[in-house]
């Protein structure tokens, strides 16, 4: 039993160590600005298509599924509110984070993993650069900056998708009422939650991606293994954390 636990506990301990070094590194020199802008481009611009599509369709699907229930209660005018609240609090942050986990946490794990198995990480240390500062820190910072922005974009496009379905396709309510009810339903609390979540997800998924990359062993096969692990672990963390953060906000 103890032996079974030993592996995960060790992994978690190493992960915390790496995270500590990377997060402390954020306020320390050296800064590799080139690497930061490359990563922001890769994660931000690169994820635009998939984030736009998932955001738009998650709003559309929500309006569609809610329409029948709302009609039963004769509350179709509330559709904007329902779409807005679920999107901003939950669906926007989680779906965007899952997409970025699939694209970028895996990308980080496979890129750093191949660097590890071809001794490029060793070479970095031998030639005077700290891989945590040069590789992990730019990825962490880039994700933390970009993911909240992507989430806001996904939220907005989700509202547009909901509007198309609710007002144009099904005619549940008027355009003015849709936007009014969605805008008024959002409280300060929702916005805070909707921005805090992607920020936390960004930190976790970039660090998970980098961690699994940096601890890759066993050649090309090992790289594949790390990549899969990174996506699975990052995705699970996202859904667990959204519950924990949501729990805190609900009790507030």
């Amino acid at each position, binding site marked *: 039993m103890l032996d079974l636990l030993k592996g995960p506990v060790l992994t978690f301990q190493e992960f915390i160590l790496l995270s500590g070094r990377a997060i402390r590194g954020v306020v320390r020199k050296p800064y590799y600005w080139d690497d930061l802008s490359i990563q922001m481009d890769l994660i931000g611009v690169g994820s635009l298509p998939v984030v736009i599509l998932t955001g738009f369709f998650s709003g559309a699907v929500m309006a569609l599924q809610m329409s029948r229930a709302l009609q039963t209660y004769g509350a179709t005018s509330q559709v904007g509110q329902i779409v807005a609240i679920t999107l901003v609090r939950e669906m926007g942050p989680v779906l965007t984070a899952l997409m970025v986990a699939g694209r970028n946490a895996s990308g980080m794990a496979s890129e750093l993993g191949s660097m590890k198995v*071809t*001794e*490029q990480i*060793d*070479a970095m*240390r*031998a*030639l*005077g650069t*700290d891989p945590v500062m040069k590789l992990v820190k730019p990825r962490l910072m880039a994700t933390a900056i970009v993911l909240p922005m992507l989430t806001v974009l996904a939220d907005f496009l989700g509202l547009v998708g909901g509007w198309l379905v609710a007002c144009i396709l099904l005619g549940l309510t008027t355009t003015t009422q849709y936007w009014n009810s969605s805008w008024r339903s959002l409280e300060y609390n929702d916005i805070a939650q909707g921005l805090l979540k992607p920020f936390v997800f960004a930190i976790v998924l970039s660090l998970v991606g980098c961690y699994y990359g940096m601890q890759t062993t066993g050649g090309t096969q090992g790289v594949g293994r790390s990549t899969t692990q990174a996506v699975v672990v990052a995705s699970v963390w996202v859904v667990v954390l959204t519950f924990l953060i949501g729990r805190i906000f609900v009790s507030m």
Partner: protein
Amino acid sequence: MDAVLVFDNVSFDFGLGPVLQNVSFSISPGETLVLHGAAGSGKTVLLKLALGLLRPVSGRILLFGQDVTNLDESEWYDVRARIGVLFQEGGLFDSLTIAENVAYPLLNQPRLKFPMDQIDARVARSLEFVELGHTLEKVPSELSGGMRRRVGIARAIVTSPELLLYDSPTAGLDPITANTIMALILKERDENNATTLMATHRHQDGEILVRYRWDKRTASLRPVGPGESTRTKYLLLRDGRIAFLGTPEEFDASRDEYVMQFASR
């Protein structure tokens, strides 16, 4: 004068049984140590210990007269600035061009602080040294295995390090290319008087280091003359333990069955 590198009873493991056990040796300035051993005997681990990329479980390591066993990572960068290394897997950055790869230690070793205007010249000189002056703007994936190995050597020597570590420089190369690589290692050793530690599977590689010198005038190898010595020592690792440490002559004359498998008959 102080030894360049000393291992004093060094042991190491990855948590799954010992990888190196009680390894002790020392290399003096200008000496060459050839590290023989079968696959998995611990050669790469030994070199990584000497670079501070791994930390010994017990024992002491001294570099340039300084005890480096318990240095933290930031202090290690100063020591590593004095060491050049060729990794077994190459370790070339595949997102950078050849010129950027070779310039990397000049730009990044915090302690070297090379003047910016000299960097290009040094990179060009180093690539000329390995006869790859025409590849500056290529990326590693566009070069053959042997050429990548040569770029690795150019990057290792570009800072004029006092100690050079080569990890299996001829592994996976055809005999002709392998001999070209060995000639480059000799050239660096004899032109710049570099202290050299080379891991290899091939007995010939060691013999080349023992029997030849680089002749600058004719730009080729020449056999060592009588009374001349290349000051070369052999070390043979067997499953992480030292099976032999001594002169090449003792190595070839050894009656030990395991050593005889590696020695020339």
